[in-house]
């Protein structure tokens, strides 16, 4: 435990000890009720010297004493500073850009004559497909339908794409 680390944990150990004392009052048990004040008294004195000169040669002894005074609360505080201080930020839910195009011989997601494509950007989403402005279903007894595998991203249509059709494909 370095002096710098002790400077980080002593304020936390102080309130951890204060909280523990407060909780124990209803459960009995021997505890030094002045410990938070003692930690504060020693901590502020050591902190002042550390802030003025972190290489002061008296600091190792006084900081170690401070750490010893913190006792188990110092250990708890070190856990707080090392592992509980950060949370991975949530990945923002960025809207997926839909596909809208007129079927051509080439150059689009699905070209004339084709009936399947893998849409990687839509994996994990549900899919809405409109063909010539008419919403399509996955009921394969209808004259026109589609299928969508949200796990693999495989998108298939029946019948195959016809030149000049308007396709609108949305991830939802």
């Amino acid at each position, binding site marked *: 435990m370095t002096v710098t680390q002790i400077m980080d944990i002593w304020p936390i150990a102080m309130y951890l000890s204060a909280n523990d004392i407060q909780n124990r009052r209803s459960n009995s048990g021997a505890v030094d009720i*002045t410990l938070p004040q*003692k930690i504060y*008294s020693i901590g502020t004195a050591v902190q*002042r010297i550390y802030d003025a*000169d972190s290489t002061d040669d008296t600091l190792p002894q*006084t900081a170690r*004493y401070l750490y010893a005074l913190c006792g188990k609360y110092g250990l708890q505080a070190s856990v707080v500073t090392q592992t509980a201080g950060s949370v991975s930020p949530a990945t923002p839910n960025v809207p997926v850009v839909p596909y809208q195009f007129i079927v051509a011989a080439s150059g689009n997601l699905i070209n004339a004559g084709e009936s399947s494509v893998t849409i990687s950007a839509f994996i994990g989403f549900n899919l809405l497909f409109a063909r010539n402005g008419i919403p399509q279903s996955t009921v394969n007894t209808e004259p026109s339908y589609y299928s969508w595998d949200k796990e693999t991203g495989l998108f298939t249509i029946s019948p195959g794409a016809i030149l000049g059709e308007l396709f609108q494909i949305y991830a939802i």
Partner: protein
Amino acid sequence: MALTVNFSTSQTPGSPGDIIFTDTSTGSDGSVTQRRIYIQSAAGDYLVESGTSTQYEVWSGFPGTTTITLEDILEQDTAARVVVQWLDVSNNVLYDKTQYIGFTAYNEDFDYELTQNVAANPLLVDDNNFWQNKLKLRTDIESGNNAIERASDIAAAQQCYDRATYLRENSQYLFNANA
């Protein structure tokens, strides 16, 4: 850009009688040629270095010299009204800045000595006399600081600092350093 005046002060552990002034002004004004520092205690006295005959200390070299150390200007912890003036060559005050400041290095240094004592002799942690007085010392220092920060009340602050000074000056009776 117009000159916006300001300053800060600090004390170094181990040199409790000294005050370090830093000019933190921004902008410029070619008319300013000199500065003066007034340090007035709660009793109304002006504190100056030995040999100074005026009520102020001259802080020359504006704007190039941004720091000045006033040595041995304090004999104990002091709550003070500090005024820094920026003047032209004809001694006209063009700008001034007032701050109420607690200089507590004497008792802070003493508090650290007590911390060193208890670090060297951990049995002191069980000495109620030692701890109660150490906590009083801490409380008096911070009460004084609080009086200044909350109300610019250097009179109340000085009373707090004086109680802390009493603890320091009577340490042989109040802190059982040999326990």
